[in-house]
């Protein structure tokens, strides 16, 4: 049964401390969507010529990426931080909260690099911005 509404979901971004994750407190404003695409395990084919069925071993894990879309807001400091992070080649701490403590959901946290940033204008629409983040290393999922 669906149990948790998406409203109140947030993405917070902050600096690394001693090159490691540090819980950020600066929530990105005006979020329209927050997509965490999750981990992908590499598959190594170990099938040999004498095999009757294909066999595999798992390789390394790619922690995946995050993409978010926001209404562009020049007054939002967290959006400005994301724009800076898209060009300064420095990692950031991230903390996604899906749902809220009062309604259930989960948090996902770790380290990421902002890999792309774009702005879109259209007829009869608001200005929107999109960011892509590449996760690095392990992430932590915690149920609320």
């Amino acid at each position, binding site marked *: 049964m669906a149990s948790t509404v998406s409203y109140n979901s947030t993405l917070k971004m902050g600096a690394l401390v001693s090159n490691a994750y540090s819980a950020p407190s600066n929530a990105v*404003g005006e979020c329209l969507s927050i997509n965490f695409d999750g981990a992908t395990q590499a598959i190594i084919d170990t099938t040999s010529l004498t095999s009757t069925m294909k066999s595999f071993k798992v390789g390394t894990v790619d922690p995946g990426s995050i993409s978010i879309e*926001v209404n562009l807001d020049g007054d939002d400091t967290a959006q400005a931080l994301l724009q800076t992070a898209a060009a300064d080649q420095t990692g950031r701490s991230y903390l996604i909260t899906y749902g809220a403590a009062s309604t259930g959901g989960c948090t996902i946290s770790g380290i990421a690099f902002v890999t792309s940033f774009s702005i879109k204008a259209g007829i009869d629409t608001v200005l929107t911005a999109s960011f892509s983040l590449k996760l690095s290393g392990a992430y932590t999922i915690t149920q609320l």
Partner: protein
Amino acid sequence: MRFVEAIHLILQQAPTVVGFVGAGNIFQTFAPPTAAFPFIVVGAQSDEPASPTLSSKDTLRRATVVVDCISTSLADSARIADHVRYDLDKSKGSIMPITNTAMVIQSVIITNDSMTFDLGSDGGENAGVFVCSVNIKIYYVATTPVPVTLTTGL
């Protein structure tokens, strides 16, 4: 519903419109029976967030209003509607409604218009009026909501 008052104020500042109907002949919601032709009536249709966000702190809103340009003459009714488009389409700025603080209008967009003939009280064409309705979309900045936390009452 501040946007109705906003459009009313904008129309009163629209030189071509005012030059044709007079600033005193622009009304909100309804016109008094004694209003002299031609006149304009501004009415609300809808009001919604322009682009709802996850944080529920949305302030940019999109409202639609209809501006009825009413005259005993088909030509005049259509002419007023054209003046409304001429003066208002893509207008923007900050205005001060009487009942509230300053309101930022980011864009006023004329979406479409239509013409009807409103039969008069005799049900015939003798006392009828021509109504050219101009539909307007307005993007404005509303105050930031401060949601309450719901709790069980005592």
